């Protein structure tokens, strides 16, 4: 297939950046989207040009590093899949593809299509864990967990932290990401112990970082490559409400 690519190029975080147009020819339908970009990059290296910088790593849809906004959709046109697993057969021969980086204030562009998502790490650091240390924990089977709860927790835990939810949200809200972690922990007895503290800390961090607010448009759910449900957001809202109303005042 022959394609026209309009790709965002930006030299560094401070540069203004603009769209550049590239042509690629003879792309196989069986190539993945990132392999198509590899081919383009290879041809640019041949011309001693700087190749396009984009994030990618495992290329099997689990590390969450790839992050391209393709024709108005994070991870492109295919459903329930990351860019690295999306294949070129999803596009028509001769079409034009517009590729942009994720856009959100807390996700500044580093270069071209590469963005800085350390905001997500900061949210997890604020409380997205069970505060146990290595060793001295009870036997794994000492606390039975309802299968339904374990399954729901696993559904939420499947989040790969790619940021597609933020990218697609018209408000650049991180609620789906944050709620997935809050939900996972709130559903498990191990996580319930510090649920009130966790949800308040994580929400406060999320707000401080400058993510937008959730207006329940649910684009996040539609675009999530791992099918994380918005019911997690409702669960987080509830957790937050009971934490604010019911829990003791939190120190630090």
């Amino acid at each position: 297939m022959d394609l026209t690519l309009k790709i965002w190029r930006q030299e560094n975080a401070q540069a203004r950046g603009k769209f550049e147009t590239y042509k690629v020819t003879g792309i196989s339908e069986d190539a993945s989207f990132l392999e198509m970009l590899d081919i383009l990059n290879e041809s640019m290296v041949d011309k001693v040009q700087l190749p396009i910088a984009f994030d990618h790593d495992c290329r099997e849809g689990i590390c969450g590093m790839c992050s391209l906004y393709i024709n108005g959709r994070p991870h492109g046109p295919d459903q329930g899949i990351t860019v690295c697993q999306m294949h070129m057969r999803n596009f028509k021969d001769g079409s034009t593809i517009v590729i942009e980086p994720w856009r959100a204030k807390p996700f500044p562009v580093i270069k071209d299509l590469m963005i800085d998502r350390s905001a997500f790490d900061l949210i997890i650091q604020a409380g997205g864990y069970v505060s146990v240390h290595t060793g001295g924990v009870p036997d794994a089977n000492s606390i039975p967990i309802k299968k339904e709860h374990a399954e729901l927790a696993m559904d939420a835990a499947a989040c790969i932290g790619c940021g597609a939810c933020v990218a697609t949200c018209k408000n650049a809200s991180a609620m789906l990401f944050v709620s997935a972690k809050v939900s996972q922990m709130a559903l498990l007895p191990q996580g319930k112990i510090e649920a009130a503290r966790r949800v308040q800390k994580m929400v406060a961090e999320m707000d401080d970082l400058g993510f937008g607010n959730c207006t329940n448009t649910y684009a996040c759910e539609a675009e999530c490559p791992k099918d994380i449900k918005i019911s997690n957001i409702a669960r987080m809202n509830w957790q937050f409400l009971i934490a604010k109303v019911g829990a003791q005042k939190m120190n630090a």
Partner: protein
Amino acid sequence: MKLDSKIPDGPLAEKWTNYKASQDLVNPANKRKIDIIVVGTGLAGAGAAASLGELGFNVKIFCIQDSPRRAHSIAAQGGINATKNYPNDGDSIYRLFYDTVKGGDYRAREANVYRLAEVSSNIIDQCVAQGVPFARDYGGLLDNRSFGGAQVSRTFYARGQTGQQLLLGAYGALSKEIHKGSVELFTRREMLDLVVIDGKARGIITRNLINGKLEKYFGHAVVIATGGYGNAFFLSTMAMTSNGSAAWQVYKKGAFFGNPNFTQIHPTCIPVHGDYQSKLTLMSESLRNDGRIWVPKNKEDAEKIQKGELKPGGIKEEDRDYYLERRYPAFGNLVPRDVASRAAKERCDAGYGVGSTGLAVYLDFADAIKRLGKNVIEARYGNLFQMYEKIVDENPYETPMMIYPAIHYTMGGIWVDYELQTTIPGLFAAGEANFSDHGANRLGASALMQGLSDGYFVLPYTLQNYLADQIQVARIPTDHPEFEKTEKEITERQEKLMAVKGSQSVDGIHKKLGRIMWEYVGMGRNQEGLEKAIGMIRELRAEFWKDVRIPGRIDELNIELDKAMRVADFLELGELMAKDALDRKESCGGHFREEYQTPEGEALRDDENFTFVSAWEYQGDDKEPILHKEPLIYENIEVKQRDYK
């Protein structure tokens, strides 16, 4: 230098307990004075950094990606072994120990493997306490499954994403410590060299991948947890940034490299489909529980399929060769990974392969669907089938899947003693980066166990034994001459690379290396091929340094330069792999020397001459490395020929 594996005295089952009882510890007030560098944030690295931070050490942790959560441990699918014996089916520490040593074809160290089996239960407890959502039964207790042909069900799993969930657990623990301030996180950094002062590891130099600056960090001890080097083959199931550079640089600084040729080739991956391919995708081993592997019995049929003139459905039952069931009636499709991979290669090399390249075999679910119904198969493998369809554009419910072996794991790695310390004092290696526990072949669901065992339960003890007499050592400023010297060496290497200004891209040369490795140092090896490969790799290395083209500058984000640094190291590491394979004149586990096989074509070990670990010592770029042999002594296990017939 003499190798000392420092295996504690006493009976096997008491070694670890004795070690812990008599080791040196660092008192809490002194822990604050000690800096530890951990490179890599996978299960081993994140687990170690979190645990050491909890103890009160100052930890600096480095990862190549934008977040610690993206380390390639995340991609492990199947599960993690532990000797909980929850199913009451006769598992025990000894049995896991035995299975692991036997699975590794008797090329692993007894004491290390026993300790691994011993702490495996603690790992599960730890993960559950962290909120890892393992699969459970309706009674609310943990579920187990049988994996990789084990006779007991000892594998714990979280759907097909066990690695992800365990890593997120470790990442959570790490995040907790980062928040507390005991661990400092450095992302998008790549370790380029180790700094050795007065014979001890004292720091590292990293490249900041965003601005290209070299950064120097001091540590009283350094832990390398940078994973495997399978990308020497270019195509593998490893992540794009997985590389062997950290391991290779410490090797050049004096750490011995253990069993570099031991590579695991996973039998069930999606076959290669074109030259532009960047990566191979693994389909879980569990598929072999229900799928039947076959190729056409007649060469003419195979040729027609390759040309696209015939569909698999057009081949009658009697014209199909279920070669694993034919050759290994006892284990059938469930033979270990190395055996299954070799058998697939054998059929394809003989011209019976399918797919347009002829380098694929069928994994057929038609019988299983007939027997169990589509719903059951969908419940078991639904997401795998969906993934296959997204990638290959064929419906595996209707037409057989095509699979082919691919590089998946490297059992070899930095040589370490019982304490996971390398031959450089103060330098430790953990997880896939070390060579220790899997011998010549790793069993399914054992990699996650080893990573977490090293990180959570071994290093926090053994590091202290080393650090106990380091408390008097003041922090060394990074303008120390050794730091400056090492930094200068890296700068010169980078400048040399940039100055080549040749005509070939880094990936182009990497692909050439991959083809050599796959052809001659892959599933089947022989003396002639290995010697040829060594020559070819040397030529390619010369070509690389004469003709590589890297656009851009050093002091900026430069993905081509990053890749070039890695490929430069792979071009040296690849040669050592071939050399090691040439030296080991026997077949064992993933290492199959065509000259050493039984009349039936099975691997033939030479226990008399090769029951040792090959530990290679670097001598200089133009000198042959020296081979040291660590004898393997089996006191608690009877060494037998593996037999899956």
